[in-house]
């Protein structure tokens, strides 16, 4: 019986190897297959003919070959490993790593999102004579060994919302959070709370979540991974991958495929290699803190030794995160620093932290992300300018502190006092004088001749400025598109429903500012138009102009494309940051320009954005993000791009927490990563009419969910009715609305408040 079981196990191992290596041929695989086939055949012919020793030898051969094959794994093989139904999943970890657990908010299929699993778990630790239970909130994707309803670990927006909810619960209860990332990506639907917006909300909250967060990454697919991935310590499993996009997605973009076309396996494998997605790549880039070695060819549920390793690793990581900020630690901090993970169990540390320690924890987490991805951008600013900019920053910060905090606060207090006094005096005067005035009015009735001013009839009928004449001459715009020089007409896309007449291009792009006068459809407009007509660009001061996008992964042919984009636009990255004055309100503006690689965000763009947010914070100015268009994270930068999601969100969070006004204005098409992080987390998001906002494009949605996507699914009106944005602006009124917003919205700490 036992022999039969062992034979079956070997057969399973063989199938697994075949699954991982696909069609690739190798001597070891052939040898294993031949040996196993022979044994099986013999056993089938005469049961009991394979002896225990033979089986043990075969077992050794398997172990040896697996170790050998493990050294030959390509990135694409690793992708196949993490997607294999035999791969360990969260339930296995809960069973084997923690001492006990209770799943919350779901039982199998009966769950708001079966792909997101929440559990209260604990470690039992022996401290002297006592046994202490250390509580943990476990949050992670559940693949369920290929159960269909788990959706392959692709969490829906409401699943991510559930995760966030329980992170907040952990915060209330002051227990650490362990997150486990097993997702190929987020499920791209726009229904409330919205794939992009919910990830943005998660990132925003995790940026300052006041409990230690440890994340373990096995399969980290872009946005879906980020939704629970912003952590104090990031552990990665050695056979996992962490990437900006699935290799298939990258291949589809690379090959320029549309509709149902499929990329060749070679191209997919090439993309997997180029994107630098493996654990070692990520460790090298500094995006994960530690790589946990797995058994050869990846961990499967029967690798109990691996679970023990993972347990030690988790305890060690949590201890490290806590000991960094704990005030009472003495020797233990030293021991934690010095210890290797195999001694982790021997060091006990309480994991609940005091409020001041929690503040330090959040500060450390934010600083840790701030320091990332430095190698992935080129700062062309000279040493001298950099020093000058640094000094100026300090001066600004000191100046703001003195003027708005130290003196400003006193002045505000005085003003408030005078205001109160004034109101009191007004009331007293009113009470005393009103009866007197009333009696005076009764005695001395004044006639209609008492009214001064213009004749009401004239007031209603005359022009407001008669000296200007009734007609305006010339365009009211400071800049009009060069496309308006073309003598031709275009049709409005709404012609079928709104019967719009054809529009003459010089009219449309000149006076009408690209807006159909009949239906209000907004034709796409250059970002220059907004710079000149809304943001007063000519009188602005641009900064960090020399931060340049590069090709950190040496992605094939990308240098050429990047150079072409730089030449065509005259920009060094897709992000433009400047200080300007909008109707006498000074503000910092960051623009994502669509013509530069689709407005995609890479390391340079992210850094520019962060610096802009910091500058706005230092100067107590409002911070406006104008998104002329963004296609998402720049996939050619791999994780260097995707890490900008948490980085920028943290910067924005710091700025908002400090009491600023962060306002986002979307235009044309805004999709994916940026919307799912630093743009989507803004409390004030507006869209120019006829723009599109979403997580994934219609093609990707149809491909991944199999649901038909109605036309105009991503239109701003729909985004507004789903609650993703907070208003739609007419392009011609953008400046007026923006000024109004600057005056009425935002926090307490703006210089003009």
């Amino acid at each position, binding site marked *: 019986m036992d022999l039969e079981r062992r034979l079956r196990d070997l057969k399973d191992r063989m199938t697994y190897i075949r699954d991982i290596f696909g069609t690739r041929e190798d001597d070891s695989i052939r040898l294993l297959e031949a040996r196993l086939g022979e044994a099986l055949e013999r056993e089938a012919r005469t049961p009991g003919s394979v002896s225990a020793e033979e089986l043990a030898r075969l077992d050794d051969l398997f172990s040896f070959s697996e170790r050998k094959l493990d050294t030959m794994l390509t990135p694409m093989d690793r992708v196949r490993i993490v997607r294999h139904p035999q791969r360990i999943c969260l339930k296995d970890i809960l069973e084997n790593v923690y001492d006990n657990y209770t799943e919350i908010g779901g039982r199998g299929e009966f769950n708001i999102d079966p792909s997101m699993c929440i559990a209260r778990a604990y470690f039992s630790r022996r401290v002297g004579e006592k046994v202490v239970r250390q509580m943990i909130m476990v949050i992670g994707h559940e693949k369920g060994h290929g159960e269909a309803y788990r959706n392959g670990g692709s969490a829906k927006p409401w699943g991510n919302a559930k995760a966030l909810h329980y992170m907040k619960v952990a915060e209330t209860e002051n227990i650490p959070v362990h997150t486990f990332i097993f997702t190929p990506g987020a499920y791209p639907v726009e229904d409330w709370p919205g794939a992009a917006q919910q990830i943005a909300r998660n990132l925003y909250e995790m940026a300052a979540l006041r409990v230690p967060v440890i994340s373990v990454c096995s399969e980290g697919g872009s946005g879906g991974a980020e939704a629970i991935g912003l952590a104090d310590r990031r552990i990665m499993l050695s056979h996992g991958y962490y990437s900006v996009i699935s290799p298939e997605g990258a291949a589809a973009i690379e090959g320029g495929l549309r509709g149902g076309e499929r990329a060749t396996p070679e191209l997919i494998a090439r993309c997997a290699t180029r994107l630098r997605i493996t654990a070692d790549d990520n460790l090298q880039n500094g995006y994960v803190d530690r790589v946990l070695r797995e058994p050869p060819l990846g961990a499967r549920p029967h690798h109990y030794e691996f679970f023990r390793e993972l347990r030690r690793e988790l305890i060690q990581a949590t201890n490290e995160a806590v000991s960094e900020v704990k005030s009472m630690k003495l020797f233990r901090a030293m021991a934690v620093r010095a210890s290797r993970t195999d001694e982790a169990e021997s060091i006990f540390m309480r994991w609940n932290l005091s409020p001041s320690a929690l503040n330090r924890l959040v500060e450390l987490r934010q600083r840790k992300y701030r320091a990332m991805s430095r190698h992935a951008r080129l700062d062309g600013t000279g040493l001298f300018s950099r020093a000058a900019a640094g000094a100026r920053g300090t001066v600004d910060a000191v100046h703001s502190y003195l003027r708005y905090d130290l003196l400003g606060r006193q002045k505000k207090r005085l003003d408030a006092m005078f205001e109160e006094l004034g109101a009191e005096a007004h009331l007293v005067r009113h009470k005393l004088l009103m009866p007197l005035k009333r009696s005076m009015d009764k005695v001395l009735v004044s006639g209609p001749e008492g009214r001064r001013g213009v004749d009401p009839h004239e007031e209603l009928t005359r022009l407001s400025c008669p000296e200007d004449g009734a007609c305006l001459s010339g365009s009211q715009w400071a800049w009009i598109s060069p496309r308006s020089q073309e003598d031709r007409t275009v*049709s409005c896309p709404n012609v079928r429903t709104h019967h719009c007449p*054809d529009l003459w291009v010089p009219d449309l792009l000149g006076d009408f500012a690209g807006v159909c006068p009949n239906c209000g459809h907004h034709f796409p407009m250059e970002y220059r138009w907004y710079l000149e007509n809304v943001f007063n660009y000519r009188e602005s001061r641009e900064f960090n102009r020399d931060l340049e996008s590069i090709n950190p992964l040496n992605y094939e042919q990308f240098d050429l494309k990047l150079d072409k984009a730089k030449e065509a636009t005259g920009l060094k990255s897709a992000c433009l940051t400047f200080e300007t004055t909008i109707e006498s309100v000074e503000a910092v503006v960051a623009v994502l320009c669509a013509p530069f690689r689709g407005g995609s965000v890479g390391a340079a763009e992210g850094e520019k954005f962060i610096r802009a947010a910091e500058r706005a914070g230092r100067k107590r100015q409002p911070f406006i993000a104008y998104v002329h268009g963004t296609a998402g994270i720049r996939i050619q930068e791999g994780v260097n791009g995707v890490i900008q999601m948490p980085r920028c969100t943290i910067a924005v969070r710091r700025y908002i927490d400090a009491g600023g006004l962060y306002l986002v204005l979307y235009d044309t098409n805004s999709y994916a990563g940026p919307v799912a992080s630093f743009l989507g987390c803004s409390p004030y998001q507006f869209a120019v009419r006829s723009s599109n906002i979403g997580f994934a494009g219609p093609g990707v949605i149809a491909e991944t969910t199999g649901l038909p996507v109605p036309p105009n699914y991503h239109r701003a009106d729909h985004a507004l009715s789903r609650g993703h944005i907070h208003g739609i602006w007419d392009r011609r009124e953008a400046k007026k609305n923006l000024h109004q917003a600057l005056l009425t919205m935002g926090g307490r700490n703006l210089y003009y408040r």
Partner: protein
Amino acid sequence: MLNIKELLDEVKASPYREIVVAAPHTGVVEFAGLKPGDQVHGRRGEFKEKPGTLLAHLTRERNRKPITAPEKGEVESVRTELEGQFVEAGEPLATIRHFLTRKEVIERILQEALFLFRAPERAKYYFVPEVDQKLKVSGKRSVKVSEGMELMIVSRMKRETPLAYSGPEGIIHSVYFGRGDNVDEGAPLIGVCPEDQLTVIQDVVARIQSEWEEA
């Protein structure tokens, strides 16, 4: 009185509708190379998002606009002599012969023969208890309706209001809604026909259902 048989014969004699595709405005025409006898289709897709077969391009002021087939059918004629020429608005460019489907024929006949009483707003509709009783006991053909008769109850958002019938006198031929269904505004509620035509209509509809061949 309406002659149903005659109507049916008329439909049978020409089981299609001719659609004349005319230039929506002035411009220079370029045909897309369709010949008489070619099959074309109208807008398609779940959301009618895919345009129909391209018939021609019309260029005005360097704005090249496609003209597509509005419905499924066969090209009857194309005025190829206009190729590359400037045409006025309303100039016929092509004719498409659209074969009527079973549904369209029935609809056409019922439209002529029946009076459709339509829902004034989106709501749930019920017959008043007396009518309801009668419908249940002796079938829908037993109810006679006349102008001003209180026929239904409109139930919407926790309020119920009576609805009076308005239209020609007759008996209820068909009921188009189910109990508890939400009926959209403008959707037909009941079809009413003169008492003496009832059997004829039923007969014709049944025959079309079984005999009409769709192109």
